């Protein structure tokens, strides 16, 4: 089992970002090195002026899914932002923005939340991923 795992975050809805944050924090707790590469709508959700907003849910959630997610949050579930913050405090979690998506969304690094460590291209991401698994969410 490799000690590195890498996540490509593409979707920008709160349910998928939450799932990704949980997977990342769990890996960090096991002492794995975690790479997170932000593309498209996931990157948009990490803009510092948008990260705390409601990003909606995947279409399959429906009304019942919305109610279930709201209930878990009301019961005190940590947000994906807080979960990622704790994962970074605990272990080696590196969050990089995809440079192509930065161009697509007309973003500068200063537009991003401080959770994001930098901007890189896909080649640098593959190099960081080493021989570990890559998960696309």
């Amino acid at each position, binding site marked *: 089992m490799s000690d590195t795992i890498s996540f490509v975050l593409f979707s920008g809805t709160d349910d998928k970002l939450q799932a990704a944050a*949980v997977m990342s*924090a*769990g890996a*960090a*707790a*096991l*002492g794995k090195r975690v790479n997170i590469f932000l593309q498209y709508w996931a990157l948009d959700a990490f803009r510092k002026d948008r990260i705390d907003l409601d990003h909606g849910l995947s279409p399959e959630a429906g009304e019942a899914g919305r109610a279930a997610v709201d209930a*878990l949050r009301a*019961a*005190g*579930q*940590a947000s994906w932002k807080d*979960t990622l913050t*704790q*994962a970074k*405090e*605990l*272990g080696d979690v590196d969050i990089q923005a995809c440079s192509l998506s930065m161009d697509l969304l007309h973003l500068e690094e200063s537009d991003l939340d401080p959770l994001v460590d930098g901007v890189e291209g896909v080649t640098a991401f593959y190099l960081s991923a080493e021989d570990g698994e890559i998960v696309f969410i």
Partner: protein
Amino acid sequence: MALEIAKTVDAKGLSCPMPIVKTAQAIKDVPSGALLEVLSTDAGSTRDFAAWAKSTGNELVEQTVDGGVYRFVLRKK
């Protein structure tokens, strides 16, 4: 003989993976060989703590469940 607990993590009410995240953070603060106690209400805890202990090399010394509260005692590697 009661085991001497060096530190307790109260993770009751926290959902997965926060009980494990809090535990991984807290075990940094106790010396090797010391015992860490964790309380959790997350239903996945039993399998999660066994897996975490196995993977990290910390020993799961005791696990009990009482009224929906899981209690784990871990000995730091």
